């Protein structure tokens, strides 16, 4: 436990260091308004990373999150076009996202198909569905109502609503994972599926729940994304699922399942967010930006692998005394 905590502390330190280095040359970067902007910019990534982290905890992976986001975002835009009130839209996208996640979950649970294959398939199906319901047409800013576009940007107590939503979800899922039986079962299922069965936990159903959560969060993020950028089309958030997985991995979530925290995933997302926002300020090209994110992933995984290495069996009597 203390090991995990220190891992997150290290990551937080790395983020502060990064901000410090940038601030040394561009003091404007550390102005509260700019930092708030970075947080807000990273919010969709944070929301998706929380869901992904739960899925990865159960030894699965959800590659369909970005496509889920795009489909739910498009449906939100179309509902808005049809005059559906905003609260209903919000409930609708969360339900739709959860439903899409449930499709993944059922395939993993009932048919026992590896999640990477299931979600690779549904990822393409979800994108294809957007094309089918829109014929590839875009929904642009002028086709969206003002209220629809305004919600994520409305500033409350100095932060936009989108940031507040991310913060609320961080708190909610920290509580779910540390203080509920469901949260504990995510860890048990990923840590040792056989032992979990013997402890009376239904492994498949737990994985199903993880996919539903991930889907619901993707659905919500879909609305936030479309409303904030005021555009919806087939390819929004293309390839974003890889950023989401990267955030988890950087945040110390074990890809083999059973280990990880909400705080880790959030810090991983923030790390990527700070790099993405800081490098253009410093004047480093976007190509370097990708290389640096990549290097961070490799470093994080190497760090986790060396930390997690088992100390070996104690066979020598002399070693036990130590």
């Amino acid at each position, binding site marked *: 436990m203390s090991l995990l905590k220190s891992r997150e502390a290290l990551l937080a330190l790395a983020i502060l260091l990064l901000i410090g280095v940038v601030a040394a040359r561009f003091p404007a970067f550390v102005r509260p308004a700019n930092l708030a902007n970075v947080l807000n910019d990273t919010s969709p990534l944070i929301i998706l990373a929380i869901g992904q982290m739960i899925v990865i905890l159960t030894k699965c992976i959800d590659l369909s999150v970005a496509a889920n986001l795009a489909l739910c975002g498009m449906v939100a835009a179309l509902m808005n076009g049809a005059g559906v009130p905003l609260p209903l839209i919000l409930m609708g996208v969360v339900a739709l996202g959860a439903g899409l996640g449930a499709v993944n979950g059922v395939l993993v649970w009932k048919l026992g198909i590896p999640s990477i294959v299931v979600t690779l398939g549904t990822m393409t199906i979800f994108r294809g569905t957007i094309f089918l319901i829109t014929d590839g047409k875009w929904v642009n800013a002028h086709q969206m109502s003002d209220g629809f576009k305004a919600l994520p940007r409305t500033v409350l107590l100095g932060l936009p609503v989108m940031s507040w939503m991310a913060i609320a979800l961080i708190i909610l899922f920290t509580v779910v994972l540390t203080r*509920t039986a469901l949260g504990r079962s995510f860890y048990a299922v990923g840590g040792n599926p056989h032992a979990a069965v*013997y402890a009376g*936990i239904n492994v498949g159903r737990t994985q199903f729940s993880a996919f539903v959560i991930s889907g619901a969060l993707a659905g919500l993020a879909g609305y936030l994304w479309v409303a904030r950028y005021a555009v919806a089309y087939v390819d929004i958030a293309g390839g974003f699922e890889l950023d989401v997985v990267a955030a988890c991995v950087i945040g110390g979530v074990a890809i083999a399942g*059973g280990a990880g925290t909400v705080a880790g995933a959030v810090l991983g997302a923030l790390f990527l967010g700070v790099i993405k926002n800081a490098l253009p300020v410093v004047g480093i090209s976007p190509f370097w930006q990708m290389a640096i994110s990549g290097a961070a992933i490799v470093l994080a995984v190497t760090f986790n692998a060396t930390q997690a290495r088992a*100390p070996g069996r104690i066979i020598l009597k002399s070693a036990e005394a130590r």
Partner: protein
Amino acid sequence: MNPVLSLRGISKSFPGVKALSEVQLDLYAGQVTALIGENGAGKSTIVKVLTGVYQPDAGNITIDGAEVHFPTAQAASKAGVTAIHQETVLFDELTVAENIWLGHAPRTRFGLIDRRAMRDGALRLLEGIGATLNPDLRLRDLGIASKHLVAIARALSIDARVVIMDEPTAALSYKEIHELYELVEKLKAQGKAILFISHKFDEIFRIADRYTVFRDGQFVGQGDMGDVSENDLVQMMVGRSVDQIFPARHRNIGAPVLTVAGYSHPTEFADIGFTLHRGEILGFYGLVGAGRSEVMQSLFGITKPSKGATRIDDQVRVIRSTSEAIAAGIVYVPEDRGKQGAVKGLPIFQNVTLPSLSRTSRAGFLRLAEEFKLARDYTGRLDLRAASLDQDVGLLSGGNQQKVVIAKWLATQPRVIILDEPTKGIDIGSKAAVHEFMAELAAQGLAVIMVSSEIPEILGMSDRVIVMREGRIVDEVAGDRMTPETLVRAAAGLAVAA
């Protein structure tokens, strides 16, 4: 006739255990030598010494009178000693020919693998043992008996002179066993010296020419099969001085708790029926693969029975999942702690409370203080040695991990606890602690089922013993009939001694 291979004065110790103590063994060309002994007699250890996996602490190995050393498994196979294991170590995704030649495949002059020579060689070897298998088939498409043939062909591909068969029939069907006997005859005819390890007396008397008996890591005797009777062998196997001390028990057996009747599974067991009482320890004895664990896993809701009923306190209870079993008051402490017991990566206290989370939470929220209290209560009763309950369970020793797993089940406050090989692989000190605790549980009125393959443990702890063989209950012994001989004979399928 001189033996092909001889072992003299072989000793091997592990921390806390003397696995072999100055044992001897002789294997002759064209003869089958049966190695007989109970679990823990040292049979597996001697196989590992012979195949270069373990180095003996003392003693020597000679082949044709010349002393040899096997520092590695490769050295042993080069000297012509090969083993066919219980679980065949082969590769499912490779073809028959590739499996036979893996590691020593014939090469072309360019140093590439000579596929044709490999295929032809495989055919030749398979024909030699009377097997008609297509060498191009993938192994996963073969049945277990055919896989054995491949393993044997592989053994012959290195020109083995000594073939070790470690319980080769344990996983085979009746027909496959007879095919294996024929194969053993063929190998004998080719002049191989065969070491045949088995628990089954019928097959030992059928195919072995000679016997060697080990007991508790010591050599007891050897000779020709023609000169001994079943009774002699059983005596040699079990004639022990009981040096283990079991806790004294106040037997206070109460009302029936669990009644099982006509319990059957399509492939694993049939017609299982017994009654378990409060305060009783019921032993389940049998050979490995007799179906004991399978029955227990089914009672615990992991597999579904095809027929039969379970009653708890005279009420019929249908158990379809492990959570229903736990709710009904049945818990199962599995044999394989690493795989089925502890969740490594989770701290001790979370491992203990895992099946009891409904009791440690209020309004859907877990209460850490109550979790710690529960974990402290039950690990304390088991005398768990750990720096803190926050510690990762994976860092504990085997004995302490076992205590965490048992504490986890006790914390559910069960009525029936099933312990599957509760002391397998743990040191003597922890064993005594587990035994004492088991006696204490029974004294508190819990009904205990203990599955064990260790005769001293079964006899020392149980009030009654059920013996299973090939998926069925073959005997139930209590009182004066609880002797090592009775158990060994029943489990091996021999007639009950007069």
